[in-house]
């Protein structure tokens, strides 16, 4: 059992958890993920590690309520336990001195970006961070991102924060003004795809962290397979980071929808007639 030591809602339905798992806290590196399972009947859900506190043995994860499991996880309180928590999984990000790095996040992807830019900055890179979200309420971690970035830009679809438009609009401007050496993009598939298309034109190296459906996360099930450079790869053991320009984006998008109908049944089944347990207490 793994204890939720701290919990905080840091955006609209976006939660920050710190979970006691000392071995993972000691060994997790930027770019890696964990898999959680809440209880006996739970499914295995991957989440990228948003940070660690090895001293206290804590692993930080940030997630947005989307389906059954994330909604259920959000309903747990400080002091509650989850049944399973395994990691760190996947290859860590290769950290080195590139020069100027542009890190682009979409929505809750900012959480995954944070440990990455921290390490990139430590390695002596100039880090320009761009965060895009639908609206102001979905921005998270502003202070921390600012601290780890040489420059931080925002874009919202409705213009409630930063420029009105997409993260790619900001990226375009940055690329015009700066000599960029590498781009990292983490977020929803349409956003990563848009970044990839933009940088491909300029032959600018771009890495993305992929989030396909996973079951075991250790190479056993093949659910997370993605086509990269025409070859089938497993995101869990070959990734989760890949060269953006080689990823078959449309296939990834459709595979993510593979269980949509059943996921809805599970979610409806869970939420009907249920009130938040945290608020009841």
């Amino acid at each position: 059992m793994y204890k939720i030591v701290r919990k905080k809602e840091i955006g609209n339905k976006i939660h920050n958890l710190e979970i006691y798992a000392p071995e993972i806290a000691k060994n997790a590196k930027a770019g890696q993920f964990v898999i959680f399972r809440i209880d006996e009947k739970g499914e295995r859900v991957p989440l990228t590690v948003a940070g660690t506190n090895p001293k206290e043995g804590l692993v930080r994860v940030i997630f947005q309520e989307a389906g059954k499991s994330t909604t259920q996880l959000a309903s747990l309180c400080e002091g509650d336990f989850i049944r399973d928590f395994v990691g760190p999984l996947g290859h860590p990000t290769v950290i080195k001195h590139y020069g100027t790095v542009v890190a682009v996040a979409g929505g809750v992807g900012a959480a995954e970006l944070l440990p990455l830019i921290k390490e990139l900055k430590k390695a002596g890179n100039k880090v320009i961070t761009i965060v895009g979200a639908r609206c102001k309420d979905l921005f998270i971690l502003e202070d921390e991102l600012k601290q780890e970035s040489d420059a931080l830009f925002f874009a919202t679809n409705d213009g409630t924060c930063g420029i009105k438009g997409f993260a790619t609009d900001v990226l375009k401007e940055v690329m015009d003004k700066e000599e960029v050496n590498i781009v990292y993009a983490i977020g929803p598939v349409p956003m990563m795809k848009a970044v990839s298309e933009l940088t491909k034109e300029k032959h600018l190296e771009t890495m993305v962290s992929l989030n396909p459906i996973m079951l075991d996360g250790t190479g056993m099930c093949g659910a997370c397979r993605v086509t990269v450079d025409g070859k089938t790869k497993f995101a869990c053991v070959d990734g989760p980071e890949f060269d953006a320009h080689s990823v078959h984006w449309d296939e990834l998008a459709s595979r993510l929808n593979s269980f949509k109908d059943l996921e809805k049944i599970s979610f409806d089944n869970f939420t009907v007639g249920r009130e938040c347990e945290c608020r009841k207490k």
Partner: protein
Amino acid sequence: MPQKVNMPERDPQIRRRDFEQVNAGYSKEEMLAEAKRCLQCKNPMCAKGCPVEINIPGFIKHLVKDNPSEAIKVLKQKTNLPAVCGRVCPQENQCEKSCILSKKDEAVSIGNLERYAADATVNIEDNISIKKNGVKVAVVGSGPAGLTCGGDLLKLGYNVTVYESLHDTGGVLRYGIPEFRLPKKVLNVEIEKLKKLGMKIVLNILIGRTKNIKDLFDEGFKAIFVAVGSGLPIFPRIPGENLNHIYCSNEFLARVNLMRAFDFPNYDTPVRSGKNIVVVGGGNTAMDSARTAVRLGANRVKLVYRRSEAEMPARLEERRHAKEEGVEFITLTKLVRFIGDDNKAVKAVECVKMQLGEPDESGRSSPREIAGSKYMIDADMVVLALGVRPNPILPSLTKGLNINSHGHIVIDENHMTSIPGIFAGGDIVGGDTVISAMGMGKKAAKAIDNYLKK
């Protein structure tokens, strides 16, 4: 010679609608009748055919006297998982093949008798006195190889900790083999008995990532047995293989067996229940997949295999059960590509007919395409059971651990790897069945004991 007593089986029309066990197990009378067929050979050939060298006439002798609690003691001298072995071992190729009766008549049903002895003693504790030596040994992977090696080391007095990356024990016994062949209740009992003997099992630890081999030595483990299995599925590398609703058997079976998706949405993990399913492959995993698909409510399940049925690696019993449950066998047929619909979901597979040619290196005839014989089979879901490769995580993250060109860990005749103190066995070194993994686990336990006594 009295006739062999067949294993009672549930009616195919009923069993194809549920996940309950297909083989019902012998009654006492049936067990006695079958046990009496054993000739109690002085020089038993059957035991030589057993990878873990069970004293077969020895345990059957006790069954003849209707004494399963003595029979299980004989079994447990050699196997830690008799209820599992009795159900899933390919006895027809091992002990029963060597049974002297099989020369003229039908062999003694050794597997069915082993299962009876284990099932009849399910509530009896193993009364084994162990003299602890306090030496710590780590086992990586709680599948058949790991549990066997760990169990034997335990009985030799070692302090055994088994690390498992999944959230539950058993490896392929849990995620791969369906409930209707090996009920999880049965598996749990055997594992609980090992825990009662002192086996410590730690879940959710992926050795290589959560901690590594060096950490284990630092924690005071004197030897490590690596049995991480071959969890890396093979895909056919043909067009369309990543369309939606194409699964490998590992994913399909793990959803149903490990995550209990047959009880969705009571359990959270979903599984698709297609109506028109194509399963590809000819091994036991293919049969398990096809029969699971039948139980999830498919209208038609077609099993496509590129050789003829005679070349199928699946056990005869599994093939018969599959057919009885309505699985259609389409042999001498190879997949060419998958066809998708507008939503990128599979809607058909294109196949080509094959003919058998000269035997290849495996001794089986190598199939050749028949020109101009391509045709389509409609399918709204496909399960690929084309085999697995060794899991690369631990080998790739352990410096100095040598692997061969197939990705298997290289071991010497004592199961020791290129790193002193690290041993390996099971599928990760090239094993391919539960019992071969158990045989290796056994041999490795002896070798580890010798190594640590030096």
